[in-house]
């Protein structure tokens, strides 16, 4: 009897975590192809993925860039992306998905939307937002939110929208310009990727002091125990993002049990969870 109980406990301990599977850069159909990140075509292909007769994903990340040259708000990951669509097109595409017949996500939890606001307005030379540009970018993001929340409400869908950025100043602009009435839950999250000096984007959590962030999204393989303790000590939700899942990625997910994984391989992750 005792040995059977131990066996049950051992097997239960081997269960894999069940994080939300969120589509990275609106591009998560295999094989991984970063050149198609944040494009309408890849987004359609990702939304069409199915597992067990339901959408494979639990949510989607949409990036927006404010281009310094003309203050255009674009659906893009990088400044060298060819013919990026206006950011509003990405929201319209996802809003149309909410009108489909049947479920919009794999699980029964709210569809998770990550609206990432890129922290720079030009890469060569590297430029950051001016205070005016921060407000323009924030207003663009709220416009996307409005399209998505109205469509979800009209179609009886449950969604939650997380505004995410490497820039606390951009999140502050979002908080300052928040509409009085919001149809869907709103949250804010900090992004942390490759640390300095290898990459200039990541900022310490202290820089987000005073902001109502509830989550931190980190790169799964550039993540230290100290970061984990900092996130947990602030009682923040942990999310992982990655480009290509390796054995290291899966081990990190098993060890740190993030609430969500933002992946470019939705089917692989869904099948890994289901093993």
């Amino acid at each position, binding site marked *: 009897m005792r040995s059977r109980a131990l066996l049950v406990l051992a097997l239960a301990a081997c269960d894999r975590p069940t994080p939300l599977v969120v589509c990275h850069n609106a591009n998560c159909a295999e094989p991984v192809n970063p050149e198609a990140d944040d494009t309408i075509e890849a987004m359609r292909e990702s939304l069409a993925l199915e597992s067990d007769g339901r959408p494979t994903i639990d949510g989607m990340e949409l990036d927006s860039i404010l281009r310094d040259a003309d203050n255009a708000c674009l659906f893009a990951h990088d400044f060298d992306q060819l013919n990026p669509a206006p950011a509003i097109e990405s929201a319209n595409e996802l809003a149309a998905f909410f009108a489909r017949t049947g479920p919009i996500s794999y699980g029964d939890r709210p569809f998770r939307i990550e609206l990432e606001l890129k922290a720079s307005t030009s890469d060569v030379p590297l430029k950051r937002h001016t205070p005016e540009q921060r407000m323009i970018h924030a207003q663009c993001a709220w416009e996307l939110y409005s399209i998505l929340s109205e469509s979800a409400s009209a179609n009886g869908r449950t969604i939650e929208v997380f505004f995410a950025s490497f820039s606390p100043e951009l999140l502050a602009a979002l908080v300052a310009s928040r509409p009085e009435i919001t149809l869907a839950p709103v949250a804010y999250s900090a992004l942390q990727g490759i640390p300095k000096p290898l990459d200039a984007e990541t900022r310490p959590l202290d820089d987000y002091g005073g902001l109502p962030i509830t989550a931190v999204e980190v790169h799964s393989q550039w993540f230290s125990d100290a970061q984990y303790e900092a996130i947990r000590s602030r009682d923040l939700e942990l999310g992982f993002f990655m480009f290509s899942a*390796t054995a*290291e990625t899966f081990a990190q997910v098993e060890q740190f049990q993030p609430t969500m994984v933002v992946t470019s391989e939705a089917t692989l992750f869904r*099948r890994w969870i289901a093993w």
Partner: protein
Amino acid sequence: MRFLLAAVLVVVGSTSPAFAGPDWHAGLDVRIDQGAHPVRVTGGLTFGNVDTWLVLDPMIVTDGQHDLDLLAAWCPCGPGGWGLLGGWRTTTIGIEDGTQFQQKLILGVTAPLPRLGPIQARWAFELATLVVKHGAGLPTEAIGFSQGRDFIDLVNFGMFVTFELGSRRDAK
């Protein structure tokens, strides 16, 4: 049973001065990073200045993942000295309705640690590059270098230590 007996005879025989074959070693491969399971079983042979290892992974029972290494080190200062490490790691990951294979090229350095009685200990630092992943009906994905996102997740560093018993008694 006959195979086991033969294996025992080979092991015992190889420790006798009359045995002219390569030295053998076997033990544990231990690590704390996420490049492979933390404890694996290793064994190999030494041919002059070249040491070899085959690493098997009993921890597959814990999570359906198996990390199989075939490694070799060229030790220019002689058997048991420091060496340049190279090899291949095949990781199999159990997923629903199949197995994904992740193939990694391993390059690194290795050096002996102080001997612990009969136990030979070695340290190794590796650069593990995932070259291709395939299987389970998913599209095959090979590493690319057109932009950072193509490879940033596929190149990882790791360290491990081996603790082995062996037939060689003059390890440095």
